[in-house]
Protein backbone atom coordinates (compact mmCIF):
# COMPACT_ATOMS: atom_id res chain seq x y z
CA UNK A 1 0.00 0.00 0.00
CA UNK A 2 1.79 3.12 -1.18
CA UNK A 3 1.60 6.37 0.71
CA UNK A 4 -0.60 8.62 -1.43
CA UNK A 5 -0.02 11.85 0.37
CA UNK A 6 1.55 12.92 3.65
CA UNK A 7 -1.75 12.55 5.48
CA UNK A 8 -2.44 8.93 4.55
CA UNK A 9 -2.06 6.11 7.12
CA UNK A 10 -4.05 3.37 5.47
CA UNK A 11 -5.87 2.61 2.27
CA UNK A 12 -8.45 0.21 0.85
CA UNK A 13 -8.11 -1.54 -2.48
CA UNK A 14 -11.40 -0.87 -4.28
CA UNK A 15 -10.58 -2.87 -7.33
CA UNK A 16 -7.73 -4.83 -8.85
CA UNK A 17 -7.17 -4.11 -12.53
CA UNK A 18 -4.80 -7.06 -12.91
CA UNK A 19 -4.95 -10.73 -11.91
CA UNK A 20 -2.29 -13.35 -11.24
CA UNK A 21 -0.52 -14.22 -14.48
CA UNK A 22 -0.86 -10.76 -16.00
CA UNK A 23 2.28 -9.10 -17.29
CA UNK A 24 2.79 -5.60 -15.97
CA UNK A 25 5.29 -2.85 -16.65
CA UNK A 26 6.50 -0.18 -14.27
CA UNK A 27 4.03 2.70 -14.35
CA UNK A 28 0.99 0.60 -15.32
CA UNK A 29 -2.11 1.26 -13.28
CA UNK A 30 -2.72 -2.00 -11.43
CA UNK A 31 -5.29 -1.13 -8.77
CA UNK A 32 -7.66 1.53 -7.56
CA UNK A 33 -7.13 2.47 -3.93
CA UNK A 34 -9.46 4.48 -1.76
CA UNK A 35 -7.70 6.86 0.62
CA UNK A 36 -9.59 9.03 3.03
CA UNK A 37 -9.72 11.62 0.26
CA UNK A 38 -10.22 10.01 -3.10
CA UNK A 39 -10.09 6.93 -5.25
CA UNK A 40 -6.59 6.87 -6.70
CA UNK A 41 -5.12 4.89 -9.58
CA UNK A 42 -2.11 3.08 -8.19
CA UNK A 43 0.81 2.35 -10.47
CA UNK A 44 3.15 -0.55 -10.37
CA UNK A 45 6.76 0.13 -9.31
CA UNK A 46 8.20 -2.91 -11.06
CA UNK A 47 7.90 -4.88 -14.28
CA UNK A 48 7.11 -8.57 -14.36
CA UNK A 49 4.26 -11.01 -13.92
CA UNK A 50 1.69 -10.74 -11.14
CA UNK A 51 2.03 -13.83 -8.94
CA UNK A 52 -0.21 -13.29 -5.96
CA UNK A 53 -2.79 -10.77 -4.92
CA UNK A 54 -2.23 -10.41 -1.18
CA UNK A 55 -4.91 -7.89 -0.26
CA UNK A 56 -8.49 -8.43 -1.34
CA UNK A 57 -10.72 -5.50 -2.32
CA UNK A 58 -12.58 -3.92 0.57
CA UNK A 59 -9.96 -4.47 3.26
CA UNK A 60 -8.24 -1.45 4.77
CA UNK A 61 -4.52 -1.99 5.28
CA UNK A 62 -1.78 0.27 6.66
CA UNK A 63 0.63 2.08 4.36
CA UNK A 64 3.57 -0.23 3.66
CA UNK A 65 1.57 -3.49 3.53
CA UNK A 66 2.50 -5.55 0.45
CA UNK A 67 -0.51 -5.67 -1.88
CA UNK A 68 0.68 -8.28 -4.36
CA UNK A 69 3.82 -10.03 -5.49
CA UNK A 70 5.41 -9.63 -8.88
CA UNK A 71 7.71 -12.19 -10.44
CA UNK A 72 10.45 -10.41 -12.32
CA UNK A 73 10.83 -11.08 -16.02
CA UNK A 74 13.25 -13.99 -15.53
CA UNK A 75 10.85 -15.63 -13.15
CA UNK A 76 13.39 -15.77 -10.35
CA UNK A 77 12.17 -13.86 -7.32
CA UNK A 78 8.87 -12.44 -6.31
CA UNK A 79 8.91 -8.84 -5.28
CA UNK A 80 6.20 -7.27 -3.25
CA UNK A 81 4.36 -4.50 -5.07
CA UNK A 82 4.26 -1.12 -3.37
CA UNK A 83 6.47 -2.41 -0.61
CA UNK A 84 7.62 0.59 1.35
CA UNK A 85 5.77 3.78 2.09
CA UNK A 86 6.36 6.54 -0.39
CA UNK A 87 8.68 4.13 -2.11
CA UNK A 88 9.69 5.60 -5.45
CA UNK A 89 12.55 7.99 -5.78
CA UNK A 90 11.04 11.32 -6.78
CA UNK A 91 12.30 10.97 -10.33
CA UNK A 92 10.65 7.62 -10.94
CA UNK A 93 6.96 8.41 -10.89
CA UNK A 94 7.56 11.49 -12.97
CA UNK A 95 8.62 9.45 -15.94
CA UNK A 96 5.34 7.94 -17.17
CA UNK A 97 3.55 11.27 -16.98
CA UNK A 98 6.41 12.96 -18.74
CA UNK A 99 6.54 10.41 -21.49
CA UNK A 100 2.80 10.55 -21.99
CA UNK A 101 2.84 14.32 -22.18
CA UNK A 102 5.79 14.50 -24.53
CA UNK A 103 4.76 11.77 -26.94
CA UNK A 104 1.04 11.10 -27.13
CA UNK A 105 1.74 8.34 -29.65
CA UNK A 106 3.98 6.44 -27.25
CA UNK A 107 2.51 3.12 -26.14
CA UNK A 108 0.27 3.64 -23.16
CA UNK A 109 -1.45 1.02 -21.06
CA UNK A 110 -4.76 0.03 -22.64
CA UNK A 111 -7.76 1.83 -21.20
CA UNK A 112 -9.20 -0.06 -18.30
CA UNK A 113 -12.46 0.06 -16.52
CA UNK A 114 -12.28 2.84 -13.98
CA UNK A 115 -14.35 3.54 -10.92
CA UNK A 116 -16.95 6.21 -11.51
CA UNK A 117 -15.95 9.81 -10.96
CA UNK A 118 -18.34 11.26 -8.46
CA UNK A 119 -18.52 14.11 -6.00
CA UNK A 120 -19.67 13.66 -2.41
CA UNK A 121 -23.11 15.21 -2.94
CA UNK A 122 -23.80 13.07 -5.96
CA UNK A 123 -22.53 10.01 -4.08
CA UNK A 124 -24.96 10.78 -1.27
CA UNK A 125 -27.81 11.18 -3.71
CA UNK A 126 -26.94 7.86 -5.32
CA UNK A 127 -26.97 6.18 -1.93
CA UNK A 128 -30.36 7.68 -1.18
CA UNK A 129 -31.77 6.49 -4.48
CA UNK A 130 -30.08 3.12 -4.21
CA UNK A 131 -28.16 3.62 -7.44
CA UNK A 132 -25.04 1.53 -8.03
CA UNK A 133 -22.57 4.10 -9.37
CA UNK A 134 -20.41 1.57 -11.15
CA UNK A 135 -23.12 1.14 -13.76
CA UNK A 136 -23.72 4.85 -14.34
CA UNK A 137 -22.22 6.62 -17.33
CA UNK A 138 -20.98 10.11 -16.40
CA UNK A 139 -21.80 13.01 -18.70
CA UNK A 140 -20.02 15.72 -16.70
CA UNK A 141 -16.56 17.12 -17.19
CA UNK A 142 -13.92 14.40 -17.31
CA UNK A 143 -16.65 11.75 -17.25
CA UNK A 144 -17.90 12.91 -13.86
CA UNK A 145 -21.29 11.62 -12.79
CA UNK A 146 -23.84 14.37 -12.38
CA UNK A 147 -27.07 14.43 -10.41
CA UNK A 148 -28.94 14.05 -13.69
CA UNK A 149 -26.99 10.88 -14.46
CA UNK A 150 -27.93 9.44 -11.10
CA UNK A 151 -31.57 10.35 -11.56
CA UNK A 152 -31.53 8.76 -14.97
CA UNK A 153 -30.05 5.62 -13.50
CA UNK A 154 -32.54 5.62 -10.63
CA UNK A 155 -35.65 5.98 -12.74
CA UNK A 156 -35.72 2.59 -14.49
CA UNK A 157 -35.65 0.87 -11.11
CA UNK A 158 -39.17 2.06 -10.42
CA UNK A 159 -40.52 0.97 -13.79
CA UNK A 160 -40.96 -2.64 -14.67
CA UNK A 161 -41.28 -2.39 -18.43
CA UNK A 162 -40.36 0.16 -21.03
CA UNK A 163 -43.06 1.51 -23.32
CA UNK A 164 -42.70 1.18 -27.12
CA UNK A 165 -39.99 3.38 -28.51
CA UNK A 166 -41.31 6.72 -29.76
CA UNK A 167 -39.86 8.73 -32.63
CA UNK A 168 -37.58 11.41 -31.30
CA UNK A 169 -35.89 14.24 -33.16
CA UNK A 170 -32.09 14.30 -32.75
CA UNK A 171 -32.17 17.68 -31.02
CA UNK A 172 -34.84 16.47 -28.62
CA UNK A 173 -32.79 13.38 -27.87
CA UNK A 174 -29.72 15.47 -27.11
CA UNK A 175 -31.74 17.87 -25.04
CA UNK A 176 -33.31 15.03 -23.10
CA UNK A 177 -29.87 13.70 -22.34
CA UNK A 178 -28.67 17.08 -21.17
CA UNK A 179 -31.72 17.78 -19.06
CA UNK A 180 -31.89 14.31 -17.64
CA UNK A 181 -35.36 13.76 -19.07
CA UNK A 182 -36.41 10.16 -19.58
CA UNK A 183 -37.74 10.05 -23.15
CA UNK A 184 -40.14 7.26 -22.23
CA UNK A 185 -41.93 9.72 -19.98
CA UNK A 186 -42.30 12.45 -22.59
CA UNK A 187 -45.78 13.03 -23.95
CA UNK A 188 -45.93 14.11 -27.58
CA UNK A 189 -48.87 15.39 -29.58
CA UNK A 190 -48.42 13.30 -32.70
CA UNK A 191 -46.10 10.48 -31.79
CA UNK A 192 -42.94 12.44 -32.57
CA UNK A 193 -41.07 13.80 -29.58
CA UNK A 194 -39.73 17.31 -30.18
CA UNK A 195 -37.55 19.59 -28.10
CA UNK A 196 -40.57 21.48 -26.75
CA UNK A 197 -42.08 18.20 -25.49
CA UNK A 198 -38.82 17.34 -23.76
CA UNK A 199 -38.71 20.71 -22.05
CA UNK A 200 -42.31 20.33 -20.97
CA UNK A 201 -41.43 16.98 -19.43
CA UNK A 202 -38.40 18.30 -17.61
CA UNK A 203 -38.86 17.59 -13.93
CA UNK A 204 -39.34 20.66 -11.79
CA UNK A 205 -36.43 21.22 -9.41
CA UNK A 206 -38.52 19.96 -6.49
CA UNK A 207 -39.26 16.75 -8.34
CA UNK A 208 -35.63 15.73 -8.31
CA UNK A 209 -35.77 15.13 -4.57
CA UNK A 210 -36.17 11.42 -4.07
CA UNK A 211 -39.68 10.36 -3.28
CA UNK A 212 -39.79 8.77 0.17
CA UNK A 213 -40.98 5.42 -1.13
CA UNK A 214 -38.02 5.27 -3.53
CA UNK A 215 -35.51 5.38 -0.70
CA UNK A 216 -33.84 2.06 -0.27
CA UNK A 217 -32.19 1.04 2.96
CA UNK A 218 -29.07 3.19 2.80
CA UNK A 219 -26.04 1.21 1.74
CA UNK A 220 -23.05 1.92 3.94
CA UNK A 221 -21.45 4.90 2.25
CA UNK A 222 -18.03 6.19 3.17
CA UNK A 223 -18.56 9.66 4.49
CA UNK A 224 -15.63 11.13 2.66
CA UNK A 225 -16.16 14.57 4.17
CA UNK A 226 -15.57 13.26 7.67
CA UNK A 227 -12.61 11.04 6.84
CA UNK A 228 -11.02 13.81 4.80
CA UNK A 229 -11.47 16.21 7.70
CA UNK A 230 -9.76 13.68 9.97
CA UNK A 231 -6.81 13.26 7.60
CA UNK A 232 -6.33 17.00 7.29
CA UNK A 233 -6.76 17.46 11.04
CA UNK A 234 -4.07 14.91 11.81
CA UNK A 235 -1.54 16.31 9.36
CA UNK A 236 -2.09 19.94 10.30
CA UNK A 237 -1.97 19.20 14.03
CA UNK A 238 1.31 17.36 13.52
CA UNK A 239 2.64 20.31 11.54
CA UNK A 240 1.82 22.83 14.24
CA UNK A 241 3.08 20.48 16.97
CA UNK A 242 6.42 19.80 15.31
CA UNK A 243 7.23 22.66 13.01
CA UNK A 244 8.29 26.06 14.31
CA UNK A 245 6.81 28.15 11.50
CA UNK A 246 8.00 31.58 10.51
CA UNK A 247 6.03 33.75 8.11
CA UNK A 248 7.02 36.29 5.46
CA UNK A 249 4.93 38.26 3.02
CA UNK A 250 5.52 40.42 -0.01
CA UNK A 251 3.23 42.25 -2.42
CA UNK A 252 4.15 41.99 -6.09
CA UNK A 253 3.23 44.26 -9.00
CA UNK A 254 1.60 41.97 -11.57
CA UNK A 255 1.34 44.40 -14.49
CA UNK A 256 4.28 42.89 -16.37
CA UNK A 257 3.02 39.36 -15.80
CA UNK A 258 -0.54 40.20 -16.82
CA UNK A 259 0.66 41.97 -19.97
CA UNK A 260 2.55 38.82 -20.85
CA UNK A 261 -0.62 36.79 -20.22
CA UNK A 262 -2.72 38.99 -22.48
CA UNK A 263 -0.17 38.50 -25.22
CA UNK A 264 -0.09 34.73 -24.74
CA UNK A 265 -3.86 34.40 -24.55
CA UNK A 266 -4.62 36.41 -27.66
CA UNK A 267 -3.97 33.40 -29.86
CA UNK A 268 -5.26 30.69 -27.54
CA UNK A 269 -8.78 29.23 -27.57
CA UNK A 270 -10.74 29.72 -24.37
CA UNK A 271 -10.06 26.22 -23.06
CA UNK A 272 -6.29 26.72 -23.13
CA UNK A 273 -6.00 30.31 -21.94
CA UNK A 274 -3.47 30.86 -19.21
CA UNK A 275 -4.71 32.15 -15.85
CA UNK A 276 -2.51 34.29 -13.58
CA UNK A 277 -2.10 31.41 -11.14
CA UNK A 278 -0.02 29.49 -13.70
CA UNK A 279 2.55 32.30 -13.85
CA UNK A 280 2.72 32.52 -10.08
CA UNK A 281 3.12 28.74 -9.71
CA UNK A 282 5.84 28.80 -12.32
CA UNK A 283 7.71 31.54 -10.47
CA UNK A 284 7.32 29.62 -7.19
CA UNK A 285 8.79 26.49 -8.74
CA UNK A 286 11.72 28.27 -10.32
CA UNK A 287 12.48 30.15 -7.11
CA UNK A 288 12.45 26.83 -5.21
CA UNK A 289 15.11 25.57 -7.58
CA UNK A 290 17.23 28.64 -6.82
CA UNK A 291 16.72 28.32 -3.05
CA UNK A 292 17.09 24.54 -2.53
CA UNK A 293 17.05 24.93 1.27
CA UNK A 294 13.26 25.38 1.02
CA UNK A 295 12.72 22.53 -1.44
CA UNK A 296 12.78 19.18 0.34
CA UNK A 297 12.05 17.37 3.59
CA UNK A 298 12.86 17.57 7.28
CA UNK A 299 13.48 14.12 8.74
CA UNK A 300 15.26 12.62 11.74
CA UNK A 301 18.67 13.34 10.23
CA UNK A 302 17.83 16.95 9.44
CA UNK A 303 17.15 18.53 6.07
CA UNK A 304 17.11 16.40 2.96
CA UNK A 305 16.93 18.37 -0.29
CA UNK A 306 14.37 17.23 -2.87
CA UNK A 307 15.46 15.91 -6.24
CA UNK A 308 14.03 18.44 -8.64
CA UNK A 309 11.02 20.57 -7.81
CA UNK A 310 7.81 18.63 -7.29
CA UNK A 311 5.32 21.40 -6.70
CA UNK A 312 2.33 20.45 -4.56
CA UNK A 313 -0.80 22.41 -5.37
CA UNK A 314 -3.59 22.56 -2.80
CA UNK A 315 -6.92 21.98 -4.57
CA UNK A 316 -10.19 22.45 -2.75
CA UNK A 317 -12.89 19.94 -3.57
CA UNK A 318 -16.55 20.64 -4.18
CA UNK A 319 -18.41 19.84 -1.03
CA UNK A 320 -15.37 20.47 1.15
CA UNK A 321 -11.92 19.09 1.72
CA UNK A 322 -8.51 19.48 0.21
CA UNK A 323 -6.31 17.36 -2.00
CA UNK A 324 -2.74 18.15 -3.04
CA UNK A 325 -1.72 16.84 -6.45
CA UNK A 326 1.88 17.30 -7.51
CA UNK A 327 3.31 19.01 -10.58
CA UNK A 328 6.45 17.00 -11.33
CA UNK A 329 9.49 18.70 -12.88
CA UNK A 330 7.74 22.00 -12.39
CA UNK A 331 10.72 24.15 -13.31
CA UNK A 332 10.88 22.99 -16.91
CA UNK A 333 7.39 24.11 -17.89
CA UNK A 334 6.49 27.16 -19.98
CA UNK A 335 3.40 29.18 -18.98
CA UNK A 336 1.03 27.41 -21.37
CA UNK A 337 2.35 23.97 -20.38
CA UNK A 338 2.09 24.88 -16.71
CA UNK A 339 -1.52 25.98 -17.18
CA UNK A 340 -2.33 22.75 -19.04
CA UNK A 341 -0.88 20.71 -16.17
CA UNK A 342 -2.70 22.73 -13.53
CA UNK A 343 -6.01 22.48 -15.37
CA UNK A 344 -5.60 18.75 -15.90
CA UNK A 345 -4.64 18.06 -12.28
CA UNK A 346 -7.41 20.22 -10.81
CA UNK A 347 -10.03 18.64 -13.07
CA UNK A 348 -8.94 15.13 -12.23
CA UNK A 349 -8.46 15.88 -8.53
CA UNK A 350 -12.08 17.03 -8.38
CA UNK A 351 -13.20 14.07 -10.47
CA UNK A 352 -11.29 11.60 -8.30
CA UNK A 353 -9.03 10.34 -11.07
CA UNK A 354 -5.50 10.95 -9.94
CA UNK A 355 -2.64 8.53 -10.16
CA UNK A 356 -0.69 7.56 -7.07
CA UNK A 357 2.49 9.16 -8.41
CA UNK A 358 0.62 12.44 -8.73
CA UNK A 359 -0.04 12.57 -5.00
CA UNK A 360 3.35 11.73 -3.56
CA UNK A 361 6.59 13.41 -2.67
CA UNK A 362 5.81 17.08 -3.14
CA UNK A 363 8.97 18.99 -2.25
CA UNK A 364 7.18 22.31 -1.62
CA UNK A 365 3.48 23.23 -1.71
CA UNK A 366 1.57 26.25 -2.96
CA UNK A 367 -1.88 27.19 -1.73
CA UNK A 368 -3.81 29.64 -3.85
CA UNK A 369 -6.82 31.37 -2.37
CA UNK A 370 -6.87 34.02 -5.07
CA UNK A 371 -10.28 32.92 -6.29
CA UNK A 372 -11.83 33.40 -2.88
CA UNK A 373 -11.14 37.09 -2.79
CA UNK A 374 -8.68 37.11 0.09
CA UNK A 375 -5.64 39.30 -0.12
CA UNK A 376 -3.21 36.95 1.56
CA UNK A 377 -2.99 33.47 3.06
CA UNK A 378 -0.45 32.29 5.63
CA UNK A 379 -0.60 28.52 5.30
CA UNK A 380 0.40 25.56 7.44
CA UNK A 381 3.36 23.54 6.17
CA UNK A 382 2.68 19.97 5.05
CA UNK A 383 5.24 17.83 6.89
CA UNK A 384 7.77 16.55 6.06
CA UNK A 385 8.10 19.53 3.72
CA UNK A 386 9.72 22.68 5.04
CA UNK A 387 7.90 25.45 3.18
CA UNK A 388 4.47 26.46 1.96
CA UNK A 389 3.76 29.37 -0.36
CA UNK A 390 0.45 31.25 -0.14
CA UNK A 391 -1.01 33.18 -3.06
CA UNK A 392 -3.81 35.73 -2.65
CA UNK A 393 -6.09 37.49 -5.09
CA UNK A 394 -4.79 39.77 -7.83
CA UNK A 395 -6.23 43.16 -6.83
CA UNK A 396 -5.94 46.69 -8.19
CA UNK A 397 -4.15 48.86 -5.63
CA UNK A 398 -2.49 52.28 -5.50
CA UNK A 399 1.17 51.67 -6.19
CA UNK A 400 4.17 54.01 -6.22
CA UNK A 401 6.54 53.69 -9.17
CA UNK A 402 9.46 56.09 -9.66
CA UNK A 403 7.96 58.60 -7.24
CA UNK A 404 4.55 58.58 -8.92
CA UNK A 405 1.37 57.01 -7.69
CA UNK A 406 -0.54 54.76 -10.06
CA UNK A 407 -3.04 51.91 -9.95
CA UNK A 408 -1.53 48.49 -10.51
CA UNK A 409 -2.72 44.89 -10.29
CA UNK A 410 -0.88 43.40 -7.32
CA UNK A 411 -0.75 40.02 -5.62
CA UNK A 412 0.43 39.15 -2.12
CA UNK A 413 2.66 36.08 -1.98
CA UNK A 414 3.53 34.68 1.45
CA UNK A 415 5.94 32.07 2.70
CA UNK A 416 5.47 29.84 5.73
CA UNK A 417 8.76 28.10 6.42
CA UNK A 418 10.22 25.65 8.94
CA UNK A 419 12.62 27.51 11.19
CA UNK A 420 14.50 24.27 11.92
CA UNK A 421 15.50 24.08 8.25
CA UNK A 422 15.98 27.74 7.34
CA UNK A 423 16.15 31.24 8.75
CA UNK A 424 14.12 34.24 7.70
CA UNK A 425 16.97 35.46 5.54
CA UNK A 426 16.68 32.44 3.25
CA UNK A 427 12.91 32.78 3.13
CA UNK A 428 13.24 36.45 2.22
CA UNK A 429 15.56 35.54 -0.62
CA UNK A 430 12.97 33.10 -1.92
CA UNK A 431 10.20 35.72 -2.05
CA UNK A 432 12.61 38.19 -3.62
CA UNK A 433 13.28 35.74 -6.44
CA UNK A 434 9.56 35.08 -6.92
CA UNK A 435 9.04 38.82 -7.24
CA UNK A 436 11.90 39.22 -9.65
CA UNK A 437 10.61 36.41 -11.86
CA UNK A 438 7.12 37.89 -11.97
CA UNK A 439 8.22 41.46 -12.67
CA UNK A 440 10.93 40.93 -15.26
CA UNK A 441 9.65 41.17 -18.84
CA UNK A 442 10.15 37.88 -20.72
CA UNK A 443 10.42 35.98 -17.43
CA UNK A 444 6.90 35.31 -16.19
Amino acid at each position, binding site marked *: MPSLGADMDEGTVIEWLVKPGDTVARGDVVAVVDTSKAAVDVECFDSGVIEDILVEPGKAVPVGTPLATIGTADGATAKPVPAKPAAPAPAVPAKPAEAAAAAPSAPVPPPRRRPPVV*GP*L*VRKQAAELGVDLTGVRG*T*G*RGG*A*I*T*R*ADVQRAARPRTETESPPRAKVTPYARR*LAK*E*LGVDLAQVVSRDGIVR*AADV*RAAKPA*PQAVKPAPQAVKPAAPVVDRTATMRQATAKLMARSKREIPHYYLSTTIDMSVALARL*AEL*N*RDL*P*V*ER*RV*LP*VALVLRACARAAEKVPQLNGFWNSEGFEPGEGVRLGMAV*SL*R*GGGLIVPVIADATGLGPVEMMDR*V*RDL*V*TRARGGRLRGSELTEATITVTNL*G*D*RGVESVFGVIHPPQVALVGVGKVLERPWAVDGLLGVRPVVTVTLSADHRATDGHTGARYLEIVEKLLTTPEEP
Partner: protein
Amino acid sequence: MTPDEARDMIQAALLTVAPDAELGDVAPDADLREELDLDSIDFQAYAAELSKRSGLPVTEDDQRRLTTLAAGMTFVSRAS
Protein backbone atom coordinates in the same frame (compact mmCIF):
# COMPACT_ATOMS: atom_id res chain seq x y z
CA MET B 1 -32.18 30.31 -30.39
CA THR B 2 -35.16 30.70 -28.09
CA PRO B 3 -34.67 31.86 -24.50
CA ASP B 4 -35.63 28.36 -23.35
CA GLU B 5 -32.97 26.76 -25.51
CA ALA B 6 -30.40 29.30 -24.35
CA ARG B 7 -31.22 28.62 -20.74
CA ASP B 8 -31.00 24.87 -21.22
CA MET B 9 -27.63 25.23 -22.91
CA ILE B 10 -26.25 27.32 -20.05
CA GLN B 11 -27.64 24.91 -17.50
CA ALA B 12 -26.06 21.93 -19.25
CA ALA B 13 -22.71 23.73 -19.51
CA LEU B 14 -22.75 24.64 -15.83
CA LEU B 15 -23.61 21.11 -14.77
CA THR B 16 -20.42 19.85 -16.39
CA VAL B 17 -18.32 21.93 -13.97
CA ALA B 18 -20.64 21.88 -10.97
CA PRO B 19 -22.44 18.52 -11.11
CA ASP B 20 -24.26 19.26 -7.86
CA ALA B 21 -25.44 22.74 -8.84
CA GLU B 22 -29.08 23.71 -8.29
CA LEU B 23 -29.65 26.38 -10.92
CA GLY B 24 -33.28 26.95 -10.03
CA ASP B 25 -32.27 29.22 -7.17
CA VAL B 26 -29.68 31.31 -9.03
CA ALA B 27 -30.83 34.87 -9.82
CA PRO B 28 -30.17 36.04 -13.40
CA ASP B 29 -27.73 38.76 -12.32
CA ALA B 30 -26.02 36.86 -9.48
CA ASP B 31 -22.33 36.09 -9.86
CA LEU B 32 -22.17 32.41 -10.83
CA ARG B 33 -18.70 32.06 -9.36
CA GLU B 34 -20.02 32.98 -5.93
CA GLU B 35 -23.38 31.24 -6.23
CA LEU B 36 -21.93 27.95 -7.40
CA ASP B 37 -18.51 28.22 -5.75
CA LEU B 38 -16.59 28.14 -9.03
CA ASP B 39 -12.91 28.97 -9.10
CA SER B 40 -11.14 30.44 -12.11
CA ILE B 41 -10.41 27.01 -13.55
CA ASP B 42 -14.06 25.90 -13.23
CA PHE B 43 -15.13 29.17 -14.76
CA GLN B 44 -12.81 28.79 -17.70
CA ALA B 45 -14.13 25.27 -18.25
CA TYR B 46 -17.70 26.63 -18.19
CA ALA B 47 -16.83 29.30 -20.79
CA ALA B 48 -15.16 26.64 -22.94
CA GLU B 49 -18.19 24.37 -22.64
CA LEU B 50 -20.51 27.21 -23.63
CA SER B 51 -18.31 27.95 -26.63
CA LYS B 52 -18.38 24.30 -27.66
CA ARG B 53 -22.14 23.96 -27.31
CA SER B 54 -23.03 27.25 -28.99
CA GLY B 55 -20.37 27.06 -31.67
CA LEU B 56 -19.39 30.66 -30.83
CA PRO B 57 -15.81 31.68 -30.05
CA VAL B 58 -15.38 33.13 -26.56
CA THR B 59 -13.02 36.09 -26.56
CA GLU B 60 -11.23 37.17 -23.41
CA ASP B 61 -13.72 40.03 -23.07
CA ASP B 62 -16.62 37.58 -23.41
CA GLN B 63 -15.01 35.38 -20.78
CA ARG B 64 -14.83 38.28 -18.34
CA ARG B 65 -18.48 39.16 -18.95
CA LEU B 66 -19.96 35.66 -18.72
CA THR B 67 -20.19 35.77 -14.93
CA THR B 68 -24.00 35.85 -14.70
CA LEU B 69 -26.83 33.76 -16.12
CA ALA B 70 -28.15 36.91 -17.86
CA ALA B 71 -24.80 37.51 -19.57
CA GLY B 72 -24.72 33.87 -20.61
CA MET B 73 -28.20 34.25 -22.13
CA THR B 74 -27.09 37.28 -24.13
CA PHE B 75 -24.01 35.44 -25.29
CA VAL B 76 -25.56 32.18 -26.47
CA SER B 77 -28.58 33.91 -28.04
CA ARG B 78 -26.13 35.13 -30.69
CA ALA B 79 -25.95 31.55 -31.94
CA SER B 80 -28.32 30.80 -34.79
